[in-house]
């Protein structure tokens, strides 16, 4: 079970809901992924097109836990404002703190992220910050009381996979709260690798929504995350420099 604050989940795949080709495909992808946590963004309504459909209306909210993000915020204050709006929906108490500090790489601003987390924890939110893969920052965030830490594998939407597995493994080793690898995952092998390193979960969006067949990719990601988790708990052999025979060296015919 993945435990985040008071919540517990069977699935270790957290799925983003952005940029799917259409709602039908999205709904099927979400179902196939078996994700229980779905991320959303908070945006102004289009008051000139009131009947525009909304994906949230198509979901049975009893089956999902919403994880709104603060995307669009550049400061702690903006993030807190978005988080409060999200909570006012009455649908969620978790918040993904996402404060972008650089427009080109979409890397998070660590100082504003810490500040926002402190403010939101004070207000009783279940706080999941999206961070860089900085080991000390992850520890500092845990110390102030965040409920999970979400280091990026690579820049958002880049599909580059885990750029720095060493840092990620340091973060995982030291953490007493869930570590969810967020952003930059492109393929099932990336997702599985994150889980093999001991991550508690993976949050991805574009890897599924941008695939030629999003529903099929949702299933591939689900299986990869399960496989990676199984491998981690099974205990993998260490890598060796030279070969070790799998067949016995006794009873050879030519001995």
């Amino acid at each position, binding site marked *: 079970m993945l435990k985040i604050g008071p919540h517990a989940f069977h699935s270790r795949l957290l799925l983003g809901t*952005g940029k799917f080709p259409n709602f039908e495909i999205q709904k099927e992808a979400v179902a196939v992924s078996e994700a229980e946590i779905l*991320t*959303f963004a908070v945006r102004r*309504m289009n008051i000139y097109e009131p009947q525009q459909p909304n994906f949230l209306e198509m979901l049975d909210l009893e089956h999902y836990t919403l994880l709104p993000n603060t995307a669009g915020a550049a400061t702690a204050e903006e993030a807190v404002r978005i988080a409060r*709006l999200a909570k006012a*929906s009455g649908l969620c108490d978790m918040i993904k703190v996402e404060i972008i500090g650089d427009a080109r790489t979409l890397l998070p601003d660590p100082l504003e992220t810490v500040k926002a987390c402190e403010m939101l924890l004070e207000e009783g939110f279940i706080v999941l910050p999206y961070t860089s893969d900085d080991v000390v920052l992850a520890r500092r965030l845990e110390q102030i009381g965040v409920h999970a830490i979400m280091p990026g594998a690579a820049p958002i939407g880049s599909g580059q996979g885990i750029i720095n597995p060493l840092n990620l493994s340091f973060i995982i080793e030291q953490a007493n709260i869930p570590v969810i690898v967020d952003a930059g995952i492109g393929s099932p092998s990336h997702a599985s690798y994150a889980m093999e390193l001991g991550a508690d979960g993976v949050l991805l969006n574009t890897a599924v929504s941008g695939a030629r067949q999003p529903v099929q990719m949702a299933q591939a990601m689900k299986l990869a995350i399960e496989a990676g988790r199984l491998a981690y708990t099974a205990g993998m052999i260490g890598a060796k420099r030279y070969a070790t025979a799998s067949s016995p060296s006794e009873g050879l015919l030519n001995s």
Partner: protein
Amino acid sequence: MNLIVNGRPLSLSTESSERTSLQDLIDHLGLTDKLVIAEVDKQIVDRGLHSQYILQEDMKIELVHFVGGG
């Protein structure tokens, strides 16, 4: 009544004697059956209180919702 809604000016024709609530505005915009989260002059108005919240001239209102995002 002149308001700023989602960053744009909006004129709401009302009977001068009637008080206009936030819910009246939401209904007027055709958003009655939507999940609307409202902020007036940077203060969030709880969803249960939209009908009781009376609007004043020149208030700045944000009507937001959840959209797809990662």
